[in-house]
């Protein structure tokens, strides 16, 4: 039974829509995080001195601290953005797909 249900969901065009939209969204966000984080790790590895510079003359706030604080906040904001879209748009799309598969089942 359940295999037939999965088959019906798979052929539903909404399923393709869900998968394409969500994967694109998730991978884009993941790519942003990975690029920024490993970019930062590369700077730590190859050009550490640039992170020790102050953001402005006389300031004790260094570029490294500012960049990291920004990443903490930015990465967390990205998780919030993802959760928001997944819990509304993607979830209702998923529910529709499941409901339609049930309907066909009857």
């Amino acid at each position, binding site marked *: 039974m*359940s*295999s037939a*249900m*999965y088959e019906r*969901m*798979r052929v539903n065009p909404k*399923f393709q829509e*869900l*998968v394409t939209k*969500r994967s694109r969204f*998730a*991978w884009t*966000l*993941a790519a942003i*995080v*990975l690029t920024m*984080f*490993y970019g*930062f*790790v*590369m700077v*730590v*590895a*190859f050009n*550490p*001195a640039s*992170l*020790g510079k102050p953001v402005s003359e006389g*300031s*004790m*706030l*260094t570029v*490294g*601290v500012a960049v*990291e*604080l920004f*990443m*903490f*906040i930015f*990465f*967390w904001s*990205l*998780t*919030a953005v*993802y*959760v928001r879209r*997944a*819990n509304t748009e993607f*979830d209702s799309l*998923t529910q529709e*797909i*499941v409901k339609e*598969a049930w309907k066909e089942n009857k």
Partner: protein
Amino acid sequence: MMRNLTKLSTALGLLAVAALAFAGGPLEGVTEKQATNWHAIIMFCIFVTMTMGITYWASSRTKSTADFYTAGGGITGFQNGLAIAGDYMSAATLLGLTAMVYTQGYDGYIYMLAFFAGWPIILFLMAERLRNLGKFTFSDITAYRLDEGKVRTMAAISSLTVVCFYLIAQMVGAGQLIKLLFGLEYNVAIFAVGILMMVYVTFGGMVATTWVQIIKACMLLAGGTLVMILAFSQFDFSFQNLVEKATAVHKLKDKLMYPGSLLADPVTAISLGLGLMFGTAGLPHILMRFFTVTDAKEARKSVLYASGFVAYFFNVIFIMGLCGILIVGQNPEFFEGGTVGGKLIGGGNMVAMHLANAVGGNMLLGFLAAVAFATILAVVSGLALAGASAISHDLYARVIMKGQASETKEIQVSRIATICLGFVAIVLGILFEKQNIAFMVGLAFGVAAAANFPVLILSMFWKGLTTRGALFGGYGGLISAVTLVVLSKSVWVDVLHNAAPLFPYGQPALFAMPFAFLLAYIFSKTDSSARALREIDAFEDQYVRGQTGFGASSASNH
């Protein structure tokens, strides 16, 4: 019968605490042991009494296997978020990272970002499918369409390896810490932690373990924040002011805010980044927390809350460490013999504790010490539960009994497994007392990143993964990660006393992880057996379920 056992266990637990409280007698002369700290002991007793009450309540709600492993899937996203944060922030986080900022400055902050950056990735790429495909353990996912017996055995072995390394690190840390903070015997402390953990997990299962985590996470967040505010207020809450003064007195001088010696060579920096990021995504006790919530929606929310708490707390620790440089580092009271710049009383990891003492007196010190103890207890409980479920759910119920075991029997086995793990933890804790265990956490993360993560992610994303590929990838990752750590400086030189390490880097992830992926790929691609074809065919259904959650186990009876 159950009720009586619970009463007995509560009594036992309280006894263990009482034993703890009265054991601080004669050996005051040993250098590292401190005078018995009554504030800390009383506050810790309050914590234990409270959590024992919860365990008593939880035991009446732990009837099915789902209750035992996943609290019946009835934990809300917010509660689960706190519990994940609790699982993730061990005593090493509070004490070790504060100390790292205190001695290395900015390097500590880099470490913390690496510990944090795994979370968004877990959310974007894994949380959904984890929740939709798994039931009790992450092996449910890898075994979904592969040969259950072989794949689960492998996953259970690598889970138990991770759990054991992590347990050793926590137990030895617990013993040392409690000796320092509470002024108690090392062995007494080890037994207290082991016995309390057994009581929580055996009787309260995941319900009790989760609540212990939640309470502890709140205490940790509150305690850390309070110390940070009191300390930072001495610098008028000005980061400029704080850093100016800190760089002026610190022995690193202007280099305090530079990336420094910890990440000196690029390979170590990248390997560490990989290990911490993907290790998090392969820790069995963390992955298990994705099954305690109702559905994928709540699972996502838990990651949002958890990463928020973790990010916040890391920044608190950064400020605490910097304040420590001035408040602790300039005060002769906290140094042995009263010489500023000498050895800190109780060792390098005591910065956070001395800071609490300096800004809030004995009460705050006691509170933070109790928090540290509670933290160890909670993390150890989470680990034991993950280990026990690998034994009872994966090995016993699915591999040995082939799914024919009754729920009652399975819970019984997991309780026995918990008790065995508790004793293993106690024995290992005592055996490793004098060893340098710094590498243990790194090893746990390395194995998690190289053995658990590649197979898990491939089984979710790659249609072509077959049983043969998964086995080679999983075992290959496990063996290579362990071998590389054994050949690295932390074991080969520091433990085995050889002259030079055979593997020059401290972190195995950069090498072991790609190796595992490669093996899994090659041995799946060259697998043309009928079984492999069936497994590849079965991916389609798994894929739809992973995407929609249709057929996923839902919250039972809550």
